[in-house]
């Protein structure tokens, strides 16, 4: 019985070794491989920068608002170009302005058009959706306001008055689009 068990064990080992040799035989079969380049994921861009603002008088001449003193009849226009950068296949954004201080002159003596934004398509409001333009990563949005000191001002009303337009902020915010979450 002892010999029988020994024989059986030896046979089992032999069968296992044969199986292992048979497995090694699969390495001899054909195989092939290929490489792929999934590409690079590139992020878009969103930014807004402001150029220096320009004040002009009624004749269109540029003035220095830090030294210029207005009198009744004066009409000043402020213009500032904003460079809006929008890059991305699903990029869309809106731009809004804030922190426009209230007028400090006598209301009846001045006509002030609220600071507004425009582009080549017209007025840009908080509901306007800006999208990337073909051929350029940037587009221009113009901020402008008009201050008129009415010539109907009487007496010495609003002499030596000051209206500080403060720090106006322009915020560009990405809008969610179909395919974004």
């Amino acid at each position, binding site marked *: 019985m002892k010999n029988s068990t020994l024989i059986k064990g030896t046979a089992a080992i032999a069968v296992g070794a044969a199986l292992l040799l048979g497995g090694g035989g699969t390495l001899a079969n054909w195989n092939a491989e290929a490489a792929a380049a999934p590409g690079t994921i590139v992020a878009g861009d969103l930014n807004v920068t402001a150029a220096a603002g320009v004040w002009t*008088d009624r004749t269109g001449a540029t003035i220095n608002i830090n030294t210029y003193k207005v009198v009744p009849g004066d009409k000043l226009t402020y213009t500032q170009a904003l460079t809006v950068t929008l890059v991305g296949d699903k990029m869309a954004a809106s731009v809004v302005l804030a922190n426009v201080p209230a007028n400090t002159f006598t209301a009846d003596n001045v006509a002030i058009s609220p600071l507004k934004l425009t582009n080549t398509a017209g007025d840009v409001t908080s509901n306007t959706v800006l999208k990337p333009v073909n051929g350029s990563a940037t587009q221009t949005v113009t901020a402008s306001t008009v201050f008129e000191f009415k010539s109907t001002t009487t007496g010495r009303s609003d002499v030596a008055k000051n209206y500080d337009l403060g720090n106006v902020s322009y915020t560009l915010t990405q809008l969610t689009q179909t395919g974004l979450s």
Partner: protein
Amino acid sequence: MRIKRSLQAAALIAAAVLLGLLTVQGSYALWNATTSAAPGSVSSASFDMAMTAVNSGQTTNMTLANGTAATLTLSPAGTLGPGTPVYGGVQVTNNTNAGGQFNTVITAGQPTIANVSGGTLASYISVTAKRATSTADCSNSAGYVAIGAGGLDSPTVAKNGSTIFCFQASLSSAAPTSLKGQAVNITLPLTARQCGVSGGC
């Protein structure tokens, strides 16, 4: 039952908070950029018209710091008598700090002549005026005319420019000698106004 309701309420609150957080976080997840600009301050000019008496050199602004109209004594030169008028004058200077054009016109109104201390001299006094280009012209009797109802206008006075009004007080030859030593107060209102920006004065 009470424990079950508490657990249900807690779960509901947690779900609401989670939903709220997710909603808020969602809006911040998108890009945004901000820039700011300081357009500056719009400042109005002063309306300073300086008056200088020709004879005394006394100077004042037409409008005082408290907003009231100034009074300038012209102190006529000489002693008034029949055939010997006296002269005075005022130089008005446009001292505005306006950034652009600021033309003005000054108008001398009709005089008011008032007796002093119960005298009767006023009815024998006449006041005439003229525009001049130098203070020395005031002592030249030529060119004086009565001031009309509309007053006597100066030429256009531009920024930093000035104009001169001369005044002459004359005593009627019919004045009796009893008026000797009497005095009158003569008041001459001066008004400065800005000319139209696009038009003339």
